[in-house]
């Protein structure tokens, strides 16, 4: 696991799951926006793309998705960032960064 490798280096890498229905479109767009915002803030995280089915069991520290999928994932007990505009860096920054910094 990459997390173990990171921990071995004395660094804990946050794992962010970008979720959409099928994992081929919106979640890839979401990942780009997440990576842009993290890079601009000088933060590191592992950003993984997932379809809603896989997201129900995939391990993660933070989930980023739309309101509809957030409802389906609420019972996982993982912090969820609900995004309205998938390419809006300001929205992503305001909602995601406090969670990444707090992890």
């Amino acid at each position: 696991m990459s997390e173990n490798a990171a921990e071995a280096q004395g660094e804990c890498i946050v794992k962010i799951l970008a979720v959409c229905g099928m994992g081929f479109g919106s979640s890839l767009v979401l990942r780009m926006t997440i990576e842009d915002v993290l890079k601009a803030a000088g933060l590191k995280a592992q950003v993984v793309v997932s379809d809603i089915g896989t997201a129900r069991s995939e391990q993660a520290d933070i989930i980023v998705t739309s309101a509809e999928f957030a409802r389906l994932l609420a019972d996982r007990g993982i912090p969820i960032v609900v995004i309205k505009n998938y390419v809006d860096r300001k929205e992503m920054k305001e909602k995601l960064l406090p969670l990444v910094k707090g992890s």
Partner: protein
Amino acid sequence: MASSDAPFQLKDLLTPATIRLHVAASDPGQVIQEAGQLLLASGAIEERYIEAMRQALQTYGPYMVIVPGVALLHARPSDGVKRPCISLLTLEPPVPFGNEDNDPVKIAIAFGAVDRQKHLQALTMLTQLLANEQALSAIQASTSAEEVMHIIAAASPAS
């Protein structure tokens, strides 16, 4: 510079033949039909892909309107995609998809992917375009497919 994993730029997939402007569609199903027909006519998908896109919208809901006024429509590679492809419609009048935040849809973009890699570069450029409100307004006002291609080329530095 196209890597071998993501060889397609946006301009390779979205061409004047897969752009239609000022389309009058009464509902999301008709938008998908029109956008899918362009991909079908280009030989990039099987006909069943259009129905799969309709099913995807029904199953997963209107989250596909990922940016105010823009829907990103697609299904899975296994639903009949022969090669990566993208089509674009401007909708006149705009069509509500049932997305509380981002309705109504003025630009519909449909695509077919064969995996998570080969369309990635085109999708990256598309993401830059979607973040550019000025370019999106200019596309809505465009009167020719060539004009849309020019706007996209100017808005995606990598092309």
